[in-house]
């Protein structure tokens, strides 16, 4: 009887000591009083002229390495052929030098698709990170903590949209942040800022008076790879079924 009493008291003491400790380990939740903004982007494919200003502006604004194959946003040319083949090509001048493009009679239709991180509601990259270095902010923007990232590339593999790359200098994963440092100050992401045809629209999804909400009201939109249930927050209008 006494032993039982003792053990229960001991347990009480131990838990009493651990309680505050574990509380400190978990930390207090981020004290964000106002309803946070939920940022998203709309892309109107029929307006994109493939000029690549967004890609250049992104590289400059975010100090993305100039060499090819490192992109936070990029543009793909889709050429759908009569025999069912679809050719997808990153049109960046650093990869495909510009040339006189011939009208190819086998091509049924052809168009440009700007791509970037979809800032998913259920981001697979966050789930696979072994060290918890990638997370979503209250605004729904997925960020990488480059002090914690160990460069294991799991997230790069896990991203169904190919939106991440390994930074060649930092040796950590890097990706689009919707220009976090700009949008939190009420500015537009650099790619949206420079787009000459307003093919990119940016705004707050939780506000009814935002350009993005209007875009979603006026256009039939779709997201990339909806079957994966990642719930992207980049909405495409005029999205062709061939686009993956």
């Amino acid at each position, binding site marked *: 009887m006494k032993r039982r009493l003792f053990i229960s008291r001991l347990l009480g003491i131990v838990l009493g000591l651990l309680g505050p*400790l574990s509380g400190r380990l978990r930390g207090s939740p981020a004290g964000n009083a106002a309803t946070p903004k939920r940022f998203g982007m709309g892309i109107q494919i029929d307006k994109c002229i493939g000029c690549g200003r967004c890609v250049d502006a992104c590289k400059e604004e975010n100090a993305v390495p100039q060499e090819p194959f490192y992109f936070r946003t990029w543009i793909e040319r889709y050429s759908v052929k009569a025999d069912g083949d679809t050719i997808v090509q990153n049109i960046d001048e650093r990869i495909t030098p510009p040339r006189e*493009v011939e009208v190819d009679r086998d091509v049924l239709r052809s168009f440009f698709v700007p791509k970037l991180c979809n800032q998913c509601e259920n981001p697979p990259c966050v789930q696979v990170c072994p060290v918890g270095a990638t997370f979503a902010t209250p605004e729904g923007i997925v960020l990488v903590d480059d002090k914690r990232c160990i460069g294991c590339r799991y997230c790069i593999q896990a991203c169904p949209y190919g939106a991440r790359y390994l930074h060649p200098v930092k040796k950590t994963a890097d990706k689009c942040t919707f220009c*976090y440092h700009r949008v939190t100050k009420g500015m537009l992401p650099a790619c949206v800022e420079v787009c000459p045809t307003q093919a990119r629209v940016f705004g707050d999804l939780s506000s009814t008076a935002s350009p993005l909400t209007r875009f979603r009201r006026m256009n039939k939109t779709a997201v990339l790879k909806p079957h994966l249930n990642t719930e992207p927050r980049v909405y495409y209008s005029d999205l062709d079924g061939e686009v993956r």
Partner: protein
Amino acid sequence: MANGLRGLPDSFLRVLVVFLVLIVAVIVIGGALPTEFKDHSRHVQATIAREAALPIRFAGSTECGTCHDEARLKQIGYHRNLSCETCHGAAKAHTENPVEVKPAAPRKRESCATCHHFDPSRPTGFAQINPVMHFPRQACISCHDPHQAQPPSVPEECSACHAEIARTKAVSPHALLECTECHTVPAEHKVAPRITRASIPTERGFCGKCHDKDTATLQPPKIDINTHGEKYLCWQCHYPHMPEVR
């Protein structure tokens, strides 16, 4: 409590002492560790703070107008929806120190061509030129004001803005037909194309006026408009700018 302890076997007490020492050690070390090590939310907050503090390089389209008249000028031209920094590059540093930091002015032909050279993937109606053919060797800005871009004269050719259709048609059986044979184009269409629309044929009889077997003209190949293709519009099968019969 003390009585309870005394009744316990010696070995258990020793284990208990070790256990207590461990707990104390964890608390002490825990207190000594830098907070960064323990607290995930601190990592999150630190990363957010670091991201938010990154330098801004593009000032934004609203910044330039305070000092430059170009902003007002640009309102009326075709380039009204272009941001200044789309052409001049990132200019935040310039807005902070306008005299010492000067944005580049893209005077070369290539810089206009990034947007305007012909490319079949571009949406129809977007103004395109072939840089090799369009007044080669002269700077674009010697004829077009970049801030108030417009063709010096209203473009004569539909190919200016419908380059791909024009190229397709040029190698098709309809090569010799004028665009205006099939489309009624108000002059305004070339000035404000999205507001004033060109017409598109609406019924089969339109093609029939040249292709029906009953028409007098000899040259174009004939079909019987009453049976051929029946209920479909002709251009549901024959793309009019490249009417193939296979």
